[in-house]
């Protein structure tokens, strides 16, 4: 349980209890429920409007936060998952395939975290291996070939730091993807839904438009990792999170991202459908706009956009 959510969870529980009592028919707690619900909404709003960067990190990593499979079920229709990199394997931590969003056909690619221990073992906690990045690239090239836009959902602690991943060229796989994405002749729309973990995120995260959910984060290094290096104390993660400017609001100010998609007060992990419905029009708006731009122009603009970042002259 997250610290700052204690009171919210307490209210959730009491509302649930009263609802159960009402349903068992002993008495009608309708007004009390309505009253508590209003209180809960108020509290959620106040807690969630003042989250610190470190609290946001915790929300972004919340075990109940929707994962890619859930976003797919909520938002897309006719998903056809396509497996394999055609070189070595099929990574379960990065998945992709054809999908449809309100009649718009596209290639969907994203990190797949699990929701429990078993799933996370299978999905490697959403940490991709080279074969995952290479599969993603294969799907992007298919999208380019068949003139479909690419939509990437980012949610990873980072690329997998394991011996086998190094052996098979984790660095090369990510580098290649980044290179190809800067040069892909079809629109790329990126949405950071949870954790945007460094190179593991960017490996499927270069695009024409970068969106973020309000409580998602995006960072060059985990706050813990940064704290243990620069503060020599992993416990200073909150300081590092603030200094690194990992939240959507900071990243919008820095012009790294283009738009923030609001989450209902209480966060996406409490409001799956409402969050999805907030995402839908924003995704559609950008898809509509991007698919009207000629591919060569897209590539030029993408170059110019990235070329500007970090120019200190």
């Amino acid at each position, binding site marked *: 349980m997250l610290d700052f959510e204690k009171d919210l969870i307490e209210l959730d529980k009491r509302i649930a209890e009263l609802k159960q009592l009402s349903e068992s028919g002993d008495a009608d707690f309708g007004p009390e429920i309505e009253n508590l619900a209003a209180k809960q909404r108020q509290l959620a709003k106040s807690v969630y409007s003042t989250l610190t960067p470190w609290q946001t990190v915790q929300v972004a990593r919340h075990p109940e936060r929707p994962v890619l499979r859930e976003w797919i079920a909520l938002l897309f229709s006719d998903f056809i998952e396509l497996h394999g990199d055609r070189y070595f394997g099929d990574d379960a931590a990065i998945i992709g395939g054809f999908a449809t969003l309100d009649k718009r056909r596209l290639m969907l690619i994203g990190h797949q975290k699990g929701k429990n221990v078993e799933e996370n073992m299978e999905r490697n906690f959403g940490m991709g291996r080279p074969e995952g990045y290479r599969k993603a690239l294969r799907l992007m090239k298919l999208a380019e070939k068949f003139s479909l836009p690419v939509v990437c959902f980012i949610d990873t602690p980072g690329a997998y730091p394991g011996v086998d*991943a190094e052996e098979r060229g984790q660095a090369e796989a990510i580098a290649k993807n980044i*290179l190809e994405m800067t040069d892909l002749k079809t629109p790329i729309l990126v949405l950071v839904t949870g954790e945007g973990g460094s190179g593991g995120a*960017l490996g499927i995260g270069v695009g024409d438009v970068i969106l973020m959910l309000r409580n998602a984060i995006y960072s060059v290094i985990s706050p813990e*990792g940064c704290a243990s290096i620069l503060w*020599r104390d992993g416990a200073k993660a909150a300081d590092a999170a603030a200094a690194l400017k990992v939240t959507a609001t900071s990243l919008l100010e820095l012009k*790294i991202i283009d738009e923030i998609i609001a989450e209902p007060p209480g966060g996406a992990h409490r409001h799956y459908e409402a969050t999805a419905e907030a995402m839908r029009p924003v995704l559609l708006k950008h898809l509509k706009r991007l698919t009207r731009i000629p591919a060569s122009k897209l590539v030029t603009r993408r170059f110019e956009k990235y070329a500007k*970042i970090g*120019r200190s002259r």
Partner: protein
Amino acid sequence: MGWFRKKKSASPDPATNQDVFVQCSQCNAHVFREEWEKQIKVCPRCNFHDRLSAQERLDLLIDSGTFQELGKDIKPGDPLSFSDARGSYAKKADEARSKTDMNEAVLAGHGRLSKLHTAIAIMDFRFLGGSLGGSTGEKILITTEYAASHKLPCIIVSASGGARMHEGIVSLMQMAKTCAGVARLRQRNLPLISVLTDPTTGGVSASYAMVGDFHIAEPGALIGFAGRRVIEQTIKQKLPDDFQTAEYLQQHGFVDRIVCRADMKSLLHRILVYCGFS
């Protein structure tokens, strides 16, 4: 991405005359300083390739008097106004500048390599561990852009611990920015030779250093994505000694050739000739 990986350089030998001898940090051999410099900081006993500064590397590769520097005045920005427990990034960057007499971790420009005109960017690990900040990326990009617009080959000599975390997300985005530059070389069929020296890790290995047409490494150079310690913590095992060495990378298919420092210039020249430059 831990950008400040440590590996001891050869040091003046305190047990003997510091002006006359150098001690190899790998085999502990005592080598005459004069000999050491003549061998371009390669141990005559164990072939250990000690790190070079960007200027030393330039002297090694580019014909004397032909180098034209680009972006000399570009120095680190501070997009996050970053401070940590030990002070501000701005101050650290200033210290690095005065220590190295460079404005950034890259020396960029163009010149002649055995008479062949080439664009070249050389990283210097002494400057904040060769970390990749916004201006570092900028200097890589002006090098690739110079090559693209002048139809020149491009050589990038990497030496980096990875991202410059003091610049946060701006550092990360340099991976995309530099690769976007590489894409423009590719669009024009211009060769990129990536020279991998000790160390080339993290965000640099996962961007421009690993998308060359040719990957040429120095013997023993550390090359990899994740840091050794992070991996050991993940797998809860000790790693083999040769893990992430140039030799290991070649065995796994990611390095075209490993070449001793003394032969580097001639190899690069021969490759450029095969690529059609003369």
